[in-house]
């Protein structure tokens, strides 16, 4: 395992300490917890936004804490949903009396832990709403199973719900717009290499020298199929087509496009992928309002990428364009 770590069991706390050292004006730690919150939380007159999940997806989620995005991020162990008590602390820390929205990625563990935290907070009289992001079209959406996973599209929920909250909207309004984003955002990823949970000390799965996995989840959950490595263009096409199939766009639709790196892929390659995705959207007369290329939702050092498309309407576009001052997302 080639990693810059000290004790593999302390990576989350040490990362948090490093973040606090780096961003002392923006972040504070809720004492004794793994919650990183806006320095000025709770912000009076504003709905509080809390997200989080397992660590290892940095800059998600603590990197999205800041004006116009999240009020707090709860950092679980690597790839492990944070526990209810920690989420509860985050809710308490950001509630200004206007209520708190939990942005949850759709994994059994996250759902259960955030739900229990919400129950605890509600018992204390705090208004809590929850939205569940499930943008990953690699997984079939069936009511009999766990449903789709939440991946990079989550960042766009943070952005837009954050802008809505910033405008002074009510909890119900912020929840509604977050759900609108969720209804209109789809993603799919792929991986070239596995990643290693530091405390596990060995890669979570294996891919042969000439193999890739299409539909890979951000915790190394397998996807649709293992195949021979394909060209960037062909990968871009597979991901984009699958996303479009599900999103059912029409010509002249406006979208936000995100080409996201999983942590180990150079920015150069992400732009090469973006080149093809942009071409495909152009061919379909879909208008890209803005493109985000970079490492937004990662899987430790996994090499690979995901493509996310969000269909905009007037409201979503305005909120997307609003100012944001998070550590890893400035607008």
């Amino acid at each position, binding site marked *: 395992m080639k990693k810059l770590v000290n004790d593999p069991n302390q990576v989350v706390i040490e990362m948090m300490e490093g973040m606090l050292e780096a961003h002392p004006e923006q972040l504070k730690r809720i004492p004794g917890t793994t919650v990183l919150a806006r320095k000025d939380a709770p912000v009076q007159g504003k709905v509080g936004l809390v997200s989080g999940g397992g660590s290892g997806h940095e800059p998600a989620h603590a990197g999205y804490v800041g004006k116009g995005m999240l009020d707090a991020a709860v950092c679980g*162990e690597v790839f492990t949903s944070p526990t209810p008590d920690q989420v509860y602390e985050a809710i308490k820390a950001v509630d200004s009396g206007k209520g708190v929205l939990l942005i949850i990625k759709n994994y059994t*563990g996250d759902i259960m832990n955030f739900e229990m935290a919400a129950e605890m907070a509600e018992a204390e009289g705090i208004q809590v709403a929850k939205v569940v992001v499930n943008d990953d079209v690699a997984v079939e959406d069936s009511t009999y199973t*766990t449903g789709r996973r939440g991946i990079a599209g989550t960042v766009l929920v943070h952005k837009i719900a954050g802008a809505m909250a910033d405008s002074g909207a009510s909890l119900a309004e912020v929840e509604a717009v977050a759900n609108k984003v969720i209804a209109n955002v789809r993603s799919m990823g792929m991986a070239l290499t596995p990643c290693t949970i530091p405390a596990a000390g060995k890669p979570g799965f294996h891919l042969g020298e000439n193999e890739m996995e299409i539909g890979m989840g951000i915790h190394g959950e397998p996807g649709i199929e293992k195949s021979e490595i394909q060209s960037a263009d062909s990968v871009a096409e597979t991901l984009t087509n699958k996303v479009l199939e599900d999103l059912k766009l029409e010509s002249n639709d406006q979208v936000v496009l995100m080409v996201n790196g999983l942590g180990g892929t150079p920015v150069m390659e992400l732009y090469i992928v973006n080149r093809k995705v942009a071409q495909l959207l152009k061919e379909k007369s879909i208008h890209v309002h803005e493109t985000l290329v970079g490492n937004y939702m990662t899987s430790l050092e996994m090499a690979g990428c995901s493509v996310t498309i969000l269909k905009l309407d007037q409201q979503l576009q305005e909120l997307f364009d609003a100012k944001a001052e998070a550590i890893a997302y400035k607008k």
Partner: protein
Amino acid sequence: MTLTVETAIKWLHFVNEEIQANKEYLTDLDQAIGDGDHGLNMARGFQEVSLKLNTANYNDLASLFKDVGMTLLSKVGGASGPLYGTAFMRLSMALKDKSKATQSEFSEGLQAALNGLKMRGKAQLGDKTMIDVWEPVVEFLKNHEQVTGKQLADLAKEKMEATKDIEAKKGRAAYLGKRSIGHLDPGAVSSYLLFSSLSRTFSEGEI
């Protein structure tokens, strides 16, 4: 059988021993069809449980199991944390004020725990989760008056092994669909360790 505070503590220390010994094995199982943290999660949680039991004093089973539940809830995380946490919280509630429990009281307690698990995780028997071990074991304990530890452990083992042939419908392994077949469910294995430790607590004799 009678479950006392002492035997319960013994049981939970055994669970911790088994979990620590199988930490890598559980992680390997979870790497195959999940995200590879189940061993780490369970080891972290039961380590804390063990520490807690070494430092606190208990007069009744309810407060003991409540501490276990709260510790698991706040230390394990992931899917297994709220599940095992809820199970022990429900067990605690079912044994309110009791300093010891008969087999039938304990079985009812485990039934309450199982109900909690199902309420929390919304999984059914046959979804390839820990439920596939819990449900038959609880049924067995409820329906048989004189049970040996060996019978219990054998049943738990059999049901744990049976998860291998099931296609996952819940939890992270569900993303694999048919590709989940052929692999043991990690949570079923940790639940097996829970029940085999119970068997060990009462050695080979009657529970």
